[in-house]
């Protein structure tokens, strides 16, 4: 085996006087730089009549700024040869670009400019149509709809239960003024993390960041979203006549972002239970041809989490698959993994962590989310050490909490299935 000549990465974090947090991971051997702005606002912060506004706002950030037209923004992104995009989640909105190292400061400056858009009415009206198309696109992908149903059942009536994209109604009723108001309340440097990974020096990032004018919004206290979170037990079912398969998912309480180690433990259980190959659900459901696909894992939020397990199957196999899924949950408690099964899962976990560390974008996303969610930063070696230190007792302790599912949801052609 050849020796590893990759130089070690170096991590630094600062807070500017504006409140902007900056985290940088220097990876001298990288060929690119990934830049991300992580804004601490998402669908959970939306009052019901504004459902979808955070995501719409994400779209508006690719339109005219105070200095450029929408086309000029897009040309500037392409002039850098960037791979740029954004996403909106329940608790954050993230804007990112991966570029060659020479474009780092252009990328940081441009995205900072973009997240304080001009909110032109013409841009707003046109982009509304794009969002309505996006909603319809997902309406043709049933596997992407089930989790929305689960979230709604679990957290209703809290805004965390709402749709990230909004609905046709809420989007059509959104006004330009409502959006500007929301932006002024939520986008403030104290709620933003700038994360950069790759062939970059921390001091260069800080120099660029110090000069950023991140808008003139005043910091406000958090509004909707921090009330007591309901945790409903429910069964939900959505009938879609045109679908071929029935999708199913069950969720249990899982660790929140505040429980750092517990997230890894739950992730380990996800691999043991629902990994594509070699997991308990894959052997009994997909390997046998009973189900088309399976999945298991954890979704974390600031103050709660969900552990999920699910499958997609033809209606004629649905009942059997559902029964087997719950049997496997029971069996992983009654007959926990032996040493070799456990070690294999650990190896997968560690291997994947190393492989994904080769992507500067992957690293940037990790350090950005960690900082925004106030989790401790771990470099690759520390993260591997954590993974390898997980014991089967810890995993068994977590799996023993998976009793009756909190929420069960299905989507598909079946009229009655639970």
């Amino acid at each position, binding site marked *: 085996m050849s020796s590893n000549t990759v130089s070690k990465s170096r991590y630094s974090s600062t807070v500017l006087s504006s409140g902007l947090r900056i985290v940088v991971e220097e990876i001298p051997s990288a060929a690119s730089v990934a830049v991300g702005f992580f804004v601490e606002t998402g669908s959970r912060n939306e009052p019901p009549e504004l459902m979808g506004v955070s995501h719409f706002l994400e779209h508006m950030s690719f339109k005219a700024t105070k200095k450029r037209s929408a086309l000029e923004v*897009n040309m500037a992104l392409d002039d850098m040869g960037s791979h740029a995009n954004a996403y909106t989640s329940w608790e954050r909105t993230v804007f990112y670009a991966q570029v*060659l190292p020479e474009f780092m400061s252009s990328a940081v400056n441009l995205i900072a400019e973009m997240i304080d858009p001009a909110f032109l009415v013409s841009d707003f009206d046109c982009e509304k149509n794009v969002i309505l198309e996006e909603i319809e696109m997902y309406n043709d992908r049933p596997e992407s709809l089930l989790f929305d149903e689960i979230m709604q059942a679990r957290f209703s009536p809290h805004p965390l239960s709402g749709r990230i994209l909004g609905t046709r109604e809420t989007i059509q009723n959104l006004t330009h003024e409502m959006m500007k108001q929301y932006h002024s309340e939520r986008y403030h440097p104290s709620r933003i993390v700038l994360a950069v990974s790759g062939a970059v020096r921390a001091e260069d990032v800080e120099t660029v960041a110090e000069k950023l004018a991140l808008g003139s919004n005043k910091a406000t206290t958090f509004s909707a979203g921090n009330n007591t979170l309901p945790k409903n037990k429910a069964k939900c079912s959505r009938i879609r006549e045109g679908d071929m398969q029935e999708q199913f998912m069950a969720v249990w309480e899982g660790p929140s972002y505040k429980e750092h180690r517990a997230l890894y433990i739950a992730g380990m259980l996800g691999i043991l239970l629902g990994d594509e190959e070699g997991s308990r659900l894959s052997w009994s459901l997909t390997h046998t041809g009973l189900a088309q696909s399976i999945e298991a894992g954890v979704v974390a939020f600031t103050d709660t989490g969900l552990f999920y397990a699910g499958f997609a199957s033809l209606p004629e196999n649905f009942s059997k698959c559902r029964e087997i899924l719950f049997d496997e949950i029971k069996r992983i408690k009654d007959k926990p993994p032996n040493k070799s099964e456990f070690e294999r899962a650990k190896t997968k976990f560690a291997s994947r962590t190393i492989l994904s560390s080769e992507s500067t974008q992957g690293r940037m996303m990790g350090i950005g989310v960690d900082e925004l969610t106030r989790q401790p930063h771990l470099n690759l070696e520390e993260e591997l050490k954590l993974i390898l230190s997980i014991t089967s007792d810890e995993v068994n302790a977590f799996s023993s909490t998976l009793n009756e599912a909190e929420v069960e949801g299905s989507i598909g052609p079946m009229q009655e299935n639970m």
Partner: protein
Amino acid sequence: MIRKLSNGMTVAVEKMPNAKSASFTILLQRGAAYDPEGKAGLTAVMTEMLSRGCAGKNAVELISELDSLGIERSFDCSAEYVSLSASLLPDKLDRALNLFFDIITKPNCDQNEFKQSVELSIQSILAIEDNPAEKLMNELGLRFFPYPLGRPVKGIISEIKKLTVRDIKKAMSEFSPETAILSIAGNIEPDEVLVSVEKIFSVWKTASEIRKLSLTPPKELPSHIEKALGAQVQIGLAAPFVSAKDPNYPKAILLLMILTSGMSSRLFVEVREKRGLVYAVRAFYSLMQDNGAMIVYAGTTPDKAEECIQVICAELERLKEGANEKELERGKIKYRSSLIMACEMPSSRAQAMAVDILRFDRVRSISEMIESVTKIELEEMNSFLKSKRILPKIILTLGPEWRNKSGDGGKKI
């Protein structure tokens, strides 16, 4: 470093000094297009069976071994080839290559595993109904590419049901080193790796039968596939385009950059940004042997479908008017950027190397690829654009009824 083994197998190895992992791709040039008449889906079932046991190890033993070695793997098939890819830590490479050699040359072909693979393959075909964009692409290929290159890779349910284990055994015996490509990239020493590869793969004997495909023109099929309960109309256009060996191939790449790469590209601006007709619109290049195609995809609601198709066709037509200097520069930086960033990952590089050998009989270096595009001058690009008209041969839609009241739909366009 590229080498041909004594048995004809082509091997390419490249060290990536900044990588942590190693990755390899094996292409076996016996893909779904080689499935005999009446056995469409054979390759798909066979591919599903690859991880289900070899050299006397049953499925549990094989999958457990792959997992113990921390190998991230995928087994796929296209019309032209079956591909096996793996990413792993370099110290496991030898063992992985040995294991993959057994997977290819000593399959168990267990009857029970076969039955389960058949079930899964059938379900996989049915599941496409819930993914209309994927279904559209399958149907578009069927209408555009010569048969059986364009035949959907997953096959036909009635034909899969008639398959036997013997069919699988026969198909796997058609894998041959002469038509096999192995590429390895990452944190490795090429000399050492080549020695291992020689040792492992040289014993592989040529297949007794290496068939050639006999191609026929695609059948004429309807230009709209009804899916009444669909939310969007899926739109696909396919136009003849250059083949990889064409000397204008680099200009074709640059054309694609201008047309579809990035948010200031023509399709994105005209179809989405200016008119709000779609969320998704993109063009990409597809190649089946020497048949090159430019494929355009868009998804839109029924009332906008007609305009969407018109705008896309107008943009394809407008290409012949030429590009401006800025567009050219942007296209070049996008290409250079994408290549460099993709090649940070050994898995991308290994995959690219294998496909290069398939298309060009050699491996192009990243700098060669960049140079071939960045040296293109505006004048020569514009004369290429003028002469190379992109004319959609097939326009296909899938979804709810969208055609105007006169019922003429596609023909009018």
